[in-house]
């Protein structure tokens, strides 16, 4: 009786471990932002249900022309629903690349404090600046942070 229980217990413990080993690993988060290595990256986490995101898109669309080729703007969409994401983009077109992150893996990797959150990454992908929320009154602050990041470019660290 006890031997059977022990065997059952061992089975209960071993099977999930085997399943975890057999599951294909998700693509590492770094892969998602790899195409942008070597540039200063402005990563904006947005979602269709986030109202400040709608307000921030017109400004985000101006960043590429304003700051030139050394900066690349990337939007990470944490919507779980593709339809919601597409509907938002129809009303608020994005002039920048959008990465879908329906599982929230990239958001979790950077442990974003709120929605929306913007990160500025350096050429090696290290985080230079984080800010949460979007207020039109604070656009100057956001642009100053971008300028500071662009000026750090070339600093040997």
């Amino acid at each position, binding site marked *: 009786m006890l031997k059977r229980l*022990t065997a059952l217990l061992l089975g209960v413990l071993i099977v999930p471990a085997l399943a975890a080993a057999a599951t294909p690993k998700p693509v590492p988060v770094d892969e998602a932002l790899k195409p942008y290595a070597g540039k200063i990256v402005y990563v904006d986490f947005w979602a269709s249900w986030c109202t400040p995101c709608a307000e921030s898109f017109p400004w985000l669309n101006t960043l590429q022309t304003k700051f030139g080729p050394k900066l690349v703007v990337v939007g990470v969409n944490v919507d779980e629903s593709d339809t919601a994401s597409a509907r938002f983009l129809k009303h608020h077109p994005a002039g920048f690349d959008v990465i879908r992150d329906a599982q929230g893996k990239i958001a979790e990797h950077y442990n974003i404090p709120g929605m929306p959150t913007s990160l500025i990454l350096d050429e090696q992908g290290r985080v230079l600046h984080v800010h949460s929320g979007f207020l039109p009154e604070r656009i100057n602050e956001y642009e100053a942070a971008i300028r500071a990041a662009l000026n750090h470019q070339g600093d040997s660290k």
Partner: protein
Amino acid sequence: MKRSSVLILAPLLGLGLCALSGCSSMGAKPWQRAALSRPDMQVDADAVQAGLDDHIYFSKEASSGGRGFGGGGCGCN
């Protein structure tokens, strides 16, 4: 204790201890708040319902007012 008892009880105890941490990671992360942002998920989604709830609450408290809502207005009992 018999060795065979320990062999079966120790893992069971271990599993039991693990189950104690069941609710340790509660709450939605900031990027998971899609459902929470729906209008029908707000606390005061229905003004009439909110007003009725407040009327009942203040009646039970035998006091009135102190809370703003889209229903009867502050101070109504």
